[in-house]
């Protein structure tokens, strides 16, 4: 039995290492391109752009989002903003109406129908060549749009460009853990994008050619993960998506473990349900690396994380059991002779060493993420918070997402 458990552990660890090594090889291949940080970008032509800001009860943050959009370094006559209130019950509409007089802004109020309906309304209300959507709790860097549009002019086959999403003002331990997560994501996304295999074109400020929606349709509810679904739909239609590592969008992340759990539960449930619908793509070479690597890696990682969690939880429960038995038999709480500071007792088993290697690879990913978005690579406490918090909470949201998927319980936004 122990042998079987070890073999499963080795298979999962090998798969996880494979993905990390794949990214590393990609990075080494393309490092000159992927770490470029451009200071000034000008376009030969400035196409028209519509940016949709869908809102539901965002009265506190929508103003900041709009201000960041108005600060975009782009010709004012070529860009228009659609603030779509999706039936908010707070002062979101009033906050939006403060900007009504601005000729670049159109405020639309509709009955609540979900984020995708608000975004679609914005898209169909405009006629611009390019479309983007920005969440009302996110802020865009002034030069982000022009940098992203430069990708389209350089390569006409690119149909969408995703920005680098970073965490705004990480204060709590949970926020700092997510900051590390987003830093690694900057690296993973850039590597996946370089082989046209991104797992998701971020819902926050991915810029699309309008013809994407004309050819494959508008956003769908897609289990509250419309960004993931449209990414898959684009790949299913052999469209190319890239990632602009020097265009930044800053987002506000959940401040507590409970809120993080809820957000990631929605994401993972959406991943599982959308994966079920797009399972026809899996392992089919014609759909490219997303089908051969990205999606299978995502699916395997769910089971791998759950398996490791169960293994380590069982071990922890075993140790607690031993501690109880020691107390029961001796009346003492601690077995002092069990603690040794001799190097002989350092764990040098295969399982432990492989885990150490995995953590080293993740640390390298973190530092390369910093390099990709233009920061000097250095170790950060955020990474420790990430390892601790995600080790404890991630398996729970994965388990719940799987459970919900099996028993068909839908997730909600908040």
């Amino acid at each position: 039995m122990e042998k079987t458990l070890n073999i499963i552990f080795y298979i999962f660890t090998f798969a996880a290492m494979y993905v990390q090594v794949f990214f590393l090889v990609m990075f080494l291949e393309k490092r000159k391109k992927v770490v470029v940080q451009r200071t000034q970008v000008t376009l030969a032509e400035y196409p028209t752009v519509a940016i949709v800001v869908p809102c539901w009860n965002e009265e506190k943050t929508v103003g900041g989002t709009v201000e960041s959009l108005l600060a975009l370094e782009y010709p004012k006559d070529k860009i228009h903003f659609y603030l779509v209130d999706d039936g908010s019950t707070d002062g979101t509409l009033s906050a939006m109406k403060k900007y009504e007089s601005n000729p670049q802004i159109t405020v639309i109020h509709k009955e609540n129908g979900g984020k995708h309906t608000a975004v679609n309304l914005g898209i169909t209300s405009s006629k611009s060549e390019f479309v983007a959507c920005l969440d009302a709790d996110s802020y865009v860097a002034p030069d982000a749009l022009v940098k992203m549009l430069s990708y389209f002019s350089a390569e006409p086959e690119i149909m969408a460009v995703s920005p680098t999403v970073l965490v705004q003002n990480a204060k709590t331990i949970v926020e700092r853990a997510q900051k590390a997560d987003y830093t690694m994501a900057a690296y993973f996304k850039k590597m996946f994008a370089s082989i046209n295999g991104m797992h998701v074109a971020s819902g926050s400020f991915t810029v699309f050619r309008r013809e994407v929606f004309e050819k494959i349709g508008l956003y769908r509810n897609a289990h509250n993960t419309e960004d993931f679904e449209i990414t898959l739909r684009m790949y299913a239609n052999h469209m190319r998506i890239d990632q602009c590592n020097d265009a930044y969008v800053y987002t506000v992340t959940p401040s507590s473990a409970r809120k993080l759990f809820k957000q990631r539960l929605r994401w993972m449930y959406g991943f599982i349900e959308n994966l079920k619908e797009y399972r026809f793509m899996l392992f089919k070479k014609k759909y490219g690396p997303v089908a051969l690597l990205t999606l299978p890696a995502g699916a395997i990682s769910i089971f791998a994380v759950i398996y490791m969690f169960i293994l380590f939880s069982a071990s922890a429960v075993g140790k607690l059991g031993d501690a109880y038995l020691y107390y029961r038999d001796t009346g003492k709480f601690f077995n002092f002779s069990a603690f040794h500071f001799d190097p002989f007792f350092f764990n040098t088993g295969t399982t432990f060493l492989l885990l150490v290697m995995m953590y080293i690879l993740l640390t390298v990913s973190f530092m390369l993420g910093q390099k990709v978005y233009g920061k000097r690579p250095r170790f950060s406490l955020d990474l420790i918070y990430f390892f601790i918090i995600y080790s404890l909470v991630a398996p729970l949201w994965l388990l719940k997402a799987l459970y919900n998927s099996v028993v068909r319980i839908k997730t909600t936004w908040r």
Partner: protein
Amino acid sequence: MNDNKRYIIVFFITLALFGTGFYLSNHFSNKKITALKSIQDQISLNILSSETQFALLSETTCSADSDSVLSEELSNLSDKLDYGERTIGASNPDIISLRHYFSLLEIKDFLLLRRINERCKTDTPYIIYFYSSKDDCADCAAQWRVITALRDEHPQVRVYVFDYHTELSAVQTLKKIYKVKNTLPTLVIDEKTYSTPLDLDALKKTLKLDTKPKM
């Protein structure tokens, strides 16, 4: 680099990394076995030295110092051997051989202790503990926890641990001397055999630990 070539190269790099993990683990295990052998050799030498010293000289050489050092060394070796059995594997041939050698060292140390106690009129308490390495002793784990707790509290108590099922002839002889049957765990204290588990208080009482001055 084309995609297929990349996938294959990454596979082999990952395999190499994985292989390195296995190699390192094996390397460290071998180093630990070498360390155990070295400790056992040192203890064997120390026991031989004590025996020789004792044989050559009279009562006036009764010294507590070497006594307590040996006790500590044996206890340290026992802990490391237990750890080695758990991590490297109790069925590893080197570990089995080390365990047999350790049992012999324990018997030699026990015999030396008895001679010291007789000659120097000391009364160092000891426990000879027979357990089972097979799954036929439900109380062995609990008894060992009690003995460990006792050893923490009273480090002067010598604990000699033997697997009832070992094939070592010296251990078989020890079982015959103390009439140890297959009712485990069995403790031998002050030349008396106890075939039922003893809790911490009973053990201390039997060893007369509360009344004896600490050595």
